[in-house]
């Protein structure tokens, strides 16, 4: 199945800016929605192309939202990458700035305390869930789960610097799978 014609830069910016305001749950949570839009509906990218871009974004340093940058790059070169990034981060950042200031003024209010205390467990459940889902996407067999389990234990219990954990995993990957 061949790809459809790439979108214009304006379409790209508008699409990302819209996604920015509906993307509750952050970058990991919007990946299924991104896939639906870019691969299934518009057919701008094939499934394997999308998966490769996601893997590159996940292995590179930086926030996982950079997968959107890479999609922009693939569709519109460097201008596409910059516009996609500005689109996905801009509107939500303006909202975060506004809400963050109001939040500060409500510091002592019991409503805010209930909100923070009540949402903390949900937040932690979401963090654990996205770790699980990301590994489910990355791990091709039991070895992937073993690597994730050992990495989690090493950082949680032994308090290694996580960079060592990642470097160890990279070495293991180079030998184990070559």
């Amino acid at each position, binding site marked *: 199945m061949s790809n459809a014609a790439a979108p214009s830069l304006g379409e790209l910016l508008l699409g990302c800016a819209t996604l*920015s305001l509906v*993307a*509750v*749950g952050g*970058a990991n949570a919007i990946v299924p929605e991104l896939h639906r839009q870019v691969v299934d509906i518009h057919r701008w990218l094939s499934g394997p192309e999308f998966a490769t871009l996601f893997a*590159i974004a*996940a*292995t*590179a*340093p*930086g*926030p*996982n939202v950079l997968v959107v*940058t*890479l999609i922009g790059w693939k569709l519109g070169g460097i201008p596409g*990458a910059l516009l996609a*990034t500005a689109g996905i981060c801009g509107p*939500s*950042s303006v909202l*975060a*700035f506004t809400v*963050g200031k109001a939040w500060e003024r409500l510091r002592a209010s*019991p409503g805010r305390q*209930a*909100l923070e205390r*009540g*949402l*903390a*467990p*949900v*937040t*932690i*459940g*979401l*963090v*654990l*869930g996205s770790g*699980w889902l*990301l*590994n*489910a996407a*990355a791990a*091709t067999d039991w*070895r*992937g789960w073993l*690597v*994730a389990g*050992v*990495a*989690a234990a090493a*950082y949680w219990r032994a308090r290694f610097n*996580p960079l060592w*954990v*990642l470097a*160890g*995993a990279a070495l293991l*990957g180079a*030998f184990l*799978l*070559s």
Partner: protein
Amino acid sequence: MDTVTLNPHPRCAALFAAFFSVGMRGFGGVLPWARRMLVDERHWLDDRGFTELLSLGQLLPGPNIVNLSVVFGARCAGWRGALAAASGLLLAPLFIVLLLAEGWRHFAAVPWLQGVLTTVAAAAAGLILATGAKLAQKLEPAWWSRLLAAATFVAIAWLRLPLLAVLAVAAPCGIALAWRDLQTEKRR
């Protein structure tokens, strides 16, 4: 519970540098590094303060850690602080990821590189799990707290329910239970 005295909030240059270091080290995602930097290294927040900030970042739409950097930066130094923190977080990774993508076009066929990509992604997921576990250790001891965290995890990871639906049920439950606890504490 650790009793560390927190450092005063930083200004723009320190914010930029700190979030720059988070972006540069954040292989496989920046959440573990954001917590490590803010809580363990710079002592600008404790674990509870970090979870509160993260909750807000997650409740708002858009990338969580970008939101977190905007809110924390704004709290420290207004809109300049927000800009310093968010640009520090994004600037270097933006260039690196584009270089990598460009490079990938030439080296995609190398088999050991595929292996590296797969295991690093798995280890990065493990780090996120460990960060969740660290935050969970500092949860309120109330009975419903761990139960709600576990239920959210199961709904998202195993049942694969849509995020909005999970939030629509879990958030009001948590807020109502926390509200009830706060009322009880006040009466005591």
